[in-house]
């Protein structure tokens, strides 16, 4: 058994070492309290920040010559109805095509005040992604040039990806299954 353990540890190390390096850089570039809940699920460095800081961080990361995190992979919304005052969230995936570093940033904010700054001035790619997030979750991206629905019809009066809207009509009884909890 003994000779088999070191290779596994080495194989796991590079991502961990790289993530530690990136995190140290992040802390140097921005105020240390900018990032909370730092984790590495499946090797992808994830941190939570605030909506006040997100624009500055993403703009700073794009300009940074060392990390070169200059590619926005995707951004999407998420809804946690049980997190008081942090119900809605936006999740950004950034990628450095030079160093092959990926970074996931999250922000959470109350559903009653779903206003976050746009990053479409930094990345043109964010334009439609933010419209999609607005369409699905009702997140208002302030400063967005054209924040209207993109996939759903314009006169829709709710944001369908929120958890309070079930996929199927909850009053239907022909589909309830008492034994398997559907």
């Amino acid at each position, binding site marked *: 058994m003994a000779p088999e353990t070191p290779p596994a540890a080495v194989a796991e190390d590079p991502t961990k070492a790289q993530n530690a390096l990136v995190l140290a850089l992040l802390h140097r570039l921005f105020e240390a309290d900018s990032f909370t809940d730092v984790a590495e*699920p*499946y090797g*992808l460095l*994830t941190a939570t920040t605030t*909506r*006040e800081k997100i*624009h*500055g961080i993403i703009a700073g990361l794009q300009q940074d010559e060392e990390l070169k995190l*200059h*590619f*926005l*992979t*995707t951004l*999407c919304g*998420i809804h946690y109805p049980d997190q008081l005052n942090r119900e809605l969230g936006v*999740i950004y*995936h950034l990628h450095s*095509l030079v160093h*092959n570093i*990926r970074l*996931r940033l999250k922000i959470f904010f109350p559903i009653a*005040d779903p*206003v976050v*700054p746009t990053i479409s001035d930094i*990345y*043109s*790619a964010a*334009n*439609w*992604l933010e419209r*999609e997030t607005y369409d*699905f979750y009702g997140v*208002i*991206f*302030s*400063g*967005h*040039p*054209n*924040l*209207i*629905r*993109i*996939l*759903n*019809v*314009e006169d829709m009066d709710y944001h*369908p*990806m929120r958890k309070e809207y*079930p*996929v*199927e009509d909850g009053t239907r009884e022909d589909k309830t299954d008492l034994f*398997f909890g559907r």
Partner: protein
Amino acid sequence: MAIDALEGTRQITEEARAQRHDQLVPTLNDFSQELTTLNLGPTHPATHGIFQNILQMDGERIVSGVPTIGYIHRAFEKIAERRPFYQITTLTDRMNYCSSPINNLGWHMTVEKLLGVTVPKRAQYIRVIMMELARISDHLICNSILGVDTGAFTGFLYLFQEREKIYEIYEEVCGARLTTNMGRVGGMERDLTPVALEKLRKWLKEFPAVMREFEVLFNRNRIFMDRVVNVGPISAEKALNYGFTGPNLRAAGVDYDVRVMNPYSSYEDFEFDIPVGTKGDTYDRFIVRNEEIWQSLRIINQALENLPEGPFHADAPHFYLPPKEAVYKSMEALIYHFKIVMGEIDAPVGEVYHAVEGGNGELGYYLVSDGGRTPYRLHFRRPCFIYYQAYPEMAVGTTLSDAIVILSSMNVIAGELDA
């Protein structure tokens, strides 16, 4: 940014809405500048899919364009929140339906990453073969239709015959042709049959001649080149800013390929080149796709030559259905079958992002699991949804006929665009 400064954004969106309505009224011709509004789509024979573009035309030149999308939006991300993992595969089929196996297998790999399942080498190689076949069929469609849009119908007819043969191989492997639902979480649903191998080998022998003929017809064809060279160029910086991936980004000169940068399914075992263009114009995109077809053939040949022996699926009884015969005979198999089909097996808590190189770019799955039988949140990074944003910018200043060619060369698939 202070939150106070964000006040009044509702009004901004209302204004934006009103403004867009102004733009959208089809009869609003601006006679003072002699501009004409032209509705290109939603159902136009030259756009191969449901795309609407409202163009302002100054004579033959396009002054501005507003794309409207969402005509075949099916709320896949919402539906996915109610389905067990194995039922989501059929949703992925219907995104980029020109290369469904890549979507299916990319999704399986995402789930395997979440579950920590390691797939045996043989299954990985079979997956590589199928994904590269899918890439070839995707590029064949895009490039041959580009020919049709420039008035060259012949190439399309030659290549569609080859695509048909690829679909026959799919049929042997998974039973379906277009919406393949190929593979399972943990591997493939069955091993490559002798018939599938024979068809594959036959096709690998015959296809290069057809492809060469297609290239001879197009690559240095004066008429074709006049239509596509310098049409719709995009610089590497702009392409990156717009989130381009796949052949469109590589045509602009950036050698980003998920298969090389983050290898999955044993792509690191194969030797192949990443073709790149220089100007990112329609001609570069066409040539890059043609070259990628040759590289995909190289990969398939290597995978077939070195196809390892062994099982074609992982030993993951909680997620991989037992063989049907065993279900009738063994209690354990029956229990697993029942639990999987009824979706009674919980996944670990966690979040995963997994990307594969799709037919037209980086196809990513962001899966958030809260430990239940279905995803808590599933977001698809659809490459063409992201890069189609650049279309108005690329089309402005060109003529209508060029705009059609640009759209065609970007390989925008309506199913993926609208998800």
